[in-house]
């Protein structure tokens, strides 16, 4: 494998090749029915939590803002259902704690059309106007990080952006939602890219797609050619990059495309770039001209424990139980589901309760049965045998072996100062390859948390 990648030209150094398991890559996106009740957590993104602007008992229509904040690093939420606000208070969140949420009960007879939108013409709008329009949609990064998109696309005064990098790698095993969006909503994606380029002032845009999705590459190239015929003057390229985890990390993608390393601790803007996910831009391309809010997203529901795996268009706030019932996760009923994960298998979050709702940052729901876990559970944990696999797989060029041993000794300061713990973005490569079955990433997460608390 190493040798092959040497001759093909490596995208970025190190990394791993987990089995891709993209069960749903060939299936069209389908719409999930509306549940009779949705739970909209107030904290769905990085930044300040918005406050509710509706009261219990108030009637809301689909697409109406129900929570907002005046802080810059925050976005509003919109009602995903037409119905009645039933409850505002604590509901189970994905991290295990109970968090504040707005519960809306659907009107039985409502058509659930998105009625709130204010269509507008953005063809002459300035970059600032587009950013404001993006803020109005409540858009956050749909790739999983859930960073407010208007903040990501706004360029500081002293900086200048020349390139918009569009991240269509989707390197996580199992997940295919970005893949399907690229194939089925290429036109929306191109429109979104154009808005984002105008908002940032970028002169070119490059869509990076892993080469295990050749159909997406072809569709996008065709869409760009068609757009060029229709008079689109922006420069947009599609580039297939070699498949490798974690290609979807923005640092790795930039290295694969431009051969340059992003300075440690910096943002892509240091290189004059802004990176955004394809799902985000495709949603923007659809919502901005309609002036609607983000009320639904595409979620991959998959895993060995799901009978009807697929990419579903799910309205935000749908409880997982409803999603899994519809997708035929009979395992849940048969008391056989052992693990339900939000996100991909490498970085996803295992959840404790099926009442947790789908939020803006959830890209996938994975269900593993007991029999899928047997092998992992039977694995013996050994002391570190210093095989060096983790050092050879860490995309950030850290030394997880030594970091792990320091974590066991609780030498957290040393880890942070001398071994660059802060550079770790918890991609999970080291734990994936560790033959001794040491939970390295978990140790690093704990260490980082302790260092954060000490710094505060």
């Amino acid at each position: 494998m190493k040798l092959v990648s040497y001759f093909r030209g490596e995208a970025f150094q190190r990394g791993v090749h987990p089995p891709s398991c993209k069960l749903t890559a060939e299936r069209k996106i389908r719409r999930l029915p509306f549940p009779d009740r949705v739970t909209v957590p107030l904290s769905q993104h990085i930044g300040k939590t918005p406050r509710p602007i509706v009261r219990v008992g108030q009637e809301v229509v689909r697409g109406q803002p129900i929570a907002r904040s005046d802080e810059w690093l925050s976005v509003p939420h919109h009602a995903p259902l037409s119905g009645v606000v039933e409850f505002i208070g604590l509901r189970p969140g994905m991290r295990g704690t109970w968090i504040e949420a707005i519960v809306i009960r659907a009107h039985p007879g409502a058509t659930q059309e998105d009625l709130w939108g204010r269509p507008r013409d953005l063809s002459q709008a300035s970059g600032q106007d587009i950013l404001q329009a993006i803020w109005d949609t409540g858009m956050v990064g749909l790739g999983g990080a859930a960073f407010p998109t208007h903040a990501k696309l706004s360029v500081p005064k002293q900086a200048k952006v020349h390139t918009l990098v569009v991240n269509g790698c989707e390197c996580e095993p199992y997940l295919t939602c970005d893949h399907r969006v690229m194939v089925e909503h290429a036109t929306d994606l191109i429109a979104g890219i154009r808005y984002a380029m105008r908002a940032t002032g970028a002169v070119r845009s490059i869509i990076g797609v892993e080469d295990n999705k050749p159909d997406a590459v072809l569709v996008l190239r065709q869409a760009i050619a068609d757009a060029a015929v229709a008079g689109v003057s922006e420069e947009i390229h599609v580039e297939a990059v070699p498949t490798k985890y974690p290609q979807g990390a923005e640092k790795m993608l930039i290295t694969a495309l431009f051969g340059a390393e992003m300075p440690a601790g910096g943002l892509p803007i240091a290189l004059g770039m802004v990176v955004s996910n394809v799902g985000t831009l495709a949603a923007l391309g659809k919502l901005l001209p309609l002036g609607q809010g983000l009320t639904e997203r595409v979620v991959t529901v998959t895993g060995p424990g799901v009978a009807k795996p697929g990419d579903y268009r799910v309205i935000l706030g749908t409880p997982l139980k409803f999603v899994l019932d519809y997708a035929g996760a009979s395992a849940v009923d048969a008391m056989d589901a052992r693990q339900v994960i939000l996100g991909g298998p490498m970085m996803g979050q295992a959840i404790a309760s099926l009442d947790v709702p789908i939020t803006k940052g959830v890209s996938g729901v994975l269900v593993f049965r007991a029999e899928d876990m047997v092998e992992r559970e039977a694995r013996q944990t050994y002391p570190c045998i210093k095989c060096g696999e983790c050092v050879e797989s860490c995309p950030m060029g850290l030394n997880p072996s030594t970091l792990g041993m320091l974590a066991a000794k609780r030498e957290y300061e040393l880890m942070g100062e001398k071994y660059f713990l802060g550079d770790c973005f918890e991609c999970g490569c080291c734990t994936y390859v560790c033959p001794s079955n040491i939970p390295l990433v978990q140790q690093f997460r704990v260490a980082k948390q302790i260092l954060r608390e000490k710094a505060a």
Partner: protein
Amino acid sequence: MSAPIEIRSAPHVQSAKTVETIMRHVVYSLLPICAFYVFQYGVSALASIVVVTGACLLTERFFVGTGTQAGRLPDYSAVITGLLLALTLPPGFPLWMGAVAGIVAIALGKALFGGIGFNVFNPALVGRAFVQAAFPTAIATYTPSFLPGRFAEFIPSTHAVPLMIPADAALWLKAKSLDALAGATPLAKWKFDGVLANADELLTSLSGHMAVGPSPLLILLCGAYLASRRFMDWRIPLAVLGSAALTAWLLYAFDATRYPNPFFMLFSGGLILGAVYMATDMATSPVTPKGMWVYGALIGLLTVVIRYYSGLPEGVMYAILIANAASPLIEKITQPVPFGRGVLDRVKKRATYPLNPGYISREEANAVTPKKRFLPNKPKK
């Protein structure tokens, strides 16, 4: 909430490679070498392998059972120690001394430090170093390979009574009308008598009546298998052999009459076995890629220096043990450079797009279409 679901920390998938698989494959790759070794030296070699490995396993069982050390018996690491230790001992080594070597290897080399992963020195070499100090005559007494009747009778020193002087193999060889000198290893012959063996004969060790260890060619093949499956790091053997060859070649170029040619250096004694199986012991070698090169180079250099300038004919064992001791220090000075902290303005040649398009107009950009490496470039309509 009906179904009992569990919470785990990401990642939720893991590669299939475990400590057991690594160790098991190392054992598999050692089996052909052992078989050929038995074919060369007969039943004595077989008895030696069985007894030494058995001693290692029993000792491991004892220390794991008492809770003194980490790991468990089915992880195969003690088997590797036993097989390697047996391969480094002379085929006619008295069995009880072999058992002592096996016990010491695990007890002092491994259990003392806490078991698998914690040992500082290669356990097999600790065992060998102990018996080299304790029984210097017995360990220097080699018998030639391919003796007639080697499958029917034991070398007389094999079944020596514990704590008694073993039977003299030289007399036994004389009775078989073979020169006593045949019992010296090629390295000892070169060191003490100035007789140089052919490198190609050493490499295959197929020519008759030479007192060499397991076949270097076979070891290289088995090592190549391990390295290709990534059960062993390819850098260390390459660094050991490269630096040994370079040092030997420099000295040979300096004074060809005093120093043997580099190929003799490479293929004689235990250098190949040491480079492929001993130096690559994971727990005792550095984890950093740069550190592996330094560590391997140190072993190669020390081996040649010990062979040329010390009183011993063989130096691989001490070279590896010294490098084992130095490996934490090597690791300290060869930490990898994290992403984005090295030389930043160097754009690698694989780049598809220029970093800054500044001046590029649309026409120019179309003129210099980025070369598509992975998918054929579909012409735009």
